[in-house]
């Protein structure tokens, strides 16, 4: 039965309210990043518009302006402050580090996962479900348990505090979901296509590379985005496996000092970190929605 006009409007209103509720924390966070401290810590109530926005937090974290200079611009007495000192809140290097690792691990994950997913989709062999379960079970181990063995392993392999080391670890964690996701996309491509290609004389490898793979481009994009997001946001292993390389989540955690928590810089860096991921996920949204049944509806 066709919903009435009233029912449709009601649905619209509810939908907008629900989404607005989910957007609120992010909006609040971004708002806080342009507030001066007095507006963040106002005890009489939340401040929505009653403040003068300040770009200072972004200037410090993204443009490398030193805090000291900001302090002096505010007319402070510079006697207690160092001029020209290093700005440890400058986060540009962290953004670059995170990007390198995220892109790197995405590429490696996709490579390994597409090969495995294609095979699992096309070939039947004994123990296939168990193998898949084994892959999935890699996610069961709490990250904290992986830290020490991997630290020692990396020391022996010379991978400590390297981009490659962290890329490999992130790949490891991303693989289970990537394989499952890609398999469901491969499953969507009818086997007949493979068979037709091979009858025409193509090898299995050629079939995969030239025929089937291009057809799952959307799925690969979706998987790529999920991998990117996970790597971009991973905290624990990045913390323990690196010293000089400091990914964004680790960098943010250093803004908690022994005398105060630097909410201004935390919110600014946090907001900046969200932007690239959000753009990516928007681009692949459609494919994500399609592929996330993860093959469970195929019988």
């Amino acid at each position, binding site marked *: 039965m066709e919903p009435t006009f009233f029912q449709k409007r009601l649905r619209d209103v509810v939908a907008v309210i629900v989404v607005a509720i989910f957007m609120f924390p992010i909006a609040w966070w971004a708002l806080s990043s342009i507030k001066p401290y007095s507006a963040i810590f106002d*005890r009489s109530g939340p401040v929505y518009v009653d403040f003068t926005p300040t770009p200072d937090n972004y200037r410090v974290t993204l443009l490398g302006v030193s805090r000291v200079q900001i302090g002096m611009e505010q007319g402070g007495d*510079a006697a*207690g*402050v*160092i001029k020209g*000192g*290093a700005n440890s809140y400058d986060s540009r290097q962290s953004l670059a580090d995170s990007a390198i690792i995220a892109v790197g691990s995405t590429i490696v994950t996709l490579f390994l996962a597409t090969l495995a997913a294609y095979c699992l989709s096309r070939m039947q062999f004994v123990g296939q479900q168990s193998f898949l379960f084994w892959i999935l079970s890699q996610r069961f181990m709490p990250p904290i348990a992986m830290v020490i063995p991997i630290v020692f392993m990396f020391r022996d392999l010379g991978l400590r505090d390297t981009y490659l080391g962290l890329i490999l670890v992130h790949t490891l964690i991303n693989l289970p979901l990537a394989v499952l996701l890609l398999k469901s996309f491969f499953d969507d491509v009818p086997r007949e296509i493979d068979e037709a290609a091979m009858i025409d004389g193509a090898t299995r490898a050629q079939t995969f590379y030239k025929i089937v793979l291009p057809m799952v481009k959307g799925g690969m994009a979706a998987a790529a985005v999920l991998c990117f997001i996970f790597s971009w946001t991973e905290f624990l292993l990045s913390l323990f496996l690196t010293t000089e390389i*400091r990914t964004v989540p680790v960098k943010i955690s250093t803004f908690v000092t022994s005398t*105060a928590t630097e909410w201004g810089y935390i919110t600014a860096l946090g907001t900046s970190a969200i932007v690239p991921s959000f753009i990516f996920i928007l681009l692949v949204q459609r494919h994500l929605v399609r592929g996330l049944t993860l093959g469970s509806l195929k019988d």
Partner: protein
Amino acid sequence: MSLKDHDKKTFIVDACNDFTAKRLTKRDFMRRMAMAGVGFSAFNAGLLGGGRKRGGLLGLGPDEAQAQDADMLKWLADVGKPYAGTKIRYTSEATPPSIVANQLVAGEFTKATGIEVEVEIVPLEQVLAKATQDVQGQLGTYDLYYLDQSWMATFSQDVIDPREYYDQNKELAMPGFDWDDFSKPLVDGIAMYNGKQCGIPFDIPIFILMYRKDLFDKHNIALPKDLDEYLKVVQQMTEAEKGNGIFGTACQAKSGHYSLECDWTMALWGHGGSIFNKDKMFAGNDEQGVTGLKFYQELVKNSPPSATTWTWDGQGQALTQGAAAMAITWGEDFPGFDANDSKVKGLFEALPAPKEVPGRRAAADCGFNEIPAVGHQGGSTISLSQYSKNKEAAWLFMQWVCSKDVMARVSTLGGGASPMRNSSFTDPRVKEKAVVGPGTTRHFDAIKWTIDNQMGSEPDMPIWADLSNNDIPVELGKLLTGQDYNGDAKACLDAIGKIVDGKVADAGLR
């Protein structure tokens, strides 16, 4: 006059001559005057002329902030030449000395020696985790460790005694380093373990009383002389100012965090109790211990409700935002009160903490080198790692950052860093800053007195990091938030005693 006086006067006269003849820069002249015990007020210093224009800033401006000991830097450049290009690493908490050192190093140390220094600044529990990981595998990732005094026993075998190293490596020994200049109570309380000096004292957050003079004046409340009076004053203040949203005090009572354990020791030692008795059994649940905990429960009741989720940074923020009238806590917080955007600029004063009631337990009656006193100290050292692959370069940095000049400047810049060296307390640059404003040093008298007279130190034993982070503050947290023990202080302390005694026996330490 005595020979010594004569030398001093000759020294002064020579320095004056050199300065007039422009053989000495003004900075070096002032430094020499300071060494000779001659202080200059800003006005007088200004009269000396010279120096660059400061663009209207008052007092010691950025030029003084950049004051560099030319002799030391020249020595460093000479000795450091073979190590140019090395990179040394250490990880540290974001305390003012570390932050300041991090800001100065590129322009001064690295410029002079070519040795790069990479500092990883992270919250304290991460520093512990990384150091633990590093020594377990002897990884040598870090050339230097920043070690909290409560970890000294755990890491003593992983570090090199700096005095021995200094004596054994004469070609790397910085002239004029002056070991005796370091405050002896600090060296003993922070850096010594089992007769070995494990590092050089680097920072000394220590408990003092900080209070809002304006509120005390407003309600005509007298300053408390001991802890009993202190509690009464806190309760009075809460009554009086609660309507304005101001509580008597603010605690750092976060469940399961080391900060709660620190607050607890202040309450415990302040009432004549101790953590261990001389048989190395837990003594925190005896009569004095229970009194102490009850005192602390009252303090928490008179703090803003979120106090049980705060560590020291939340507590500091609460005081700076004007949410509490006084606290016995880290002196490091004090300069933050005078920051330009602080709501309470100029309103806080500092004094040593009120006296213990009825008195302190003698250190001889405690186990594991525990020294009870109300002024809890949380100092740290900077220590040279046994596993470092760049010991010489790291050693040069260590001496630079602990040198007289750098330590004095660190005390004034960035604010809050209490000096480790006796000379820093009397350095004219430090004395100049004893006014209201960012980087103030007007709390240093209280700190120095506390260091010399009522500094309390935690026990030194290998599992102390575990007990003081994972066990004691978790059980205390259960009590303070009502999750367990129904408000019964004795029951909570008895439970802690069982855990502690069990772990100590298990580790073979008794």
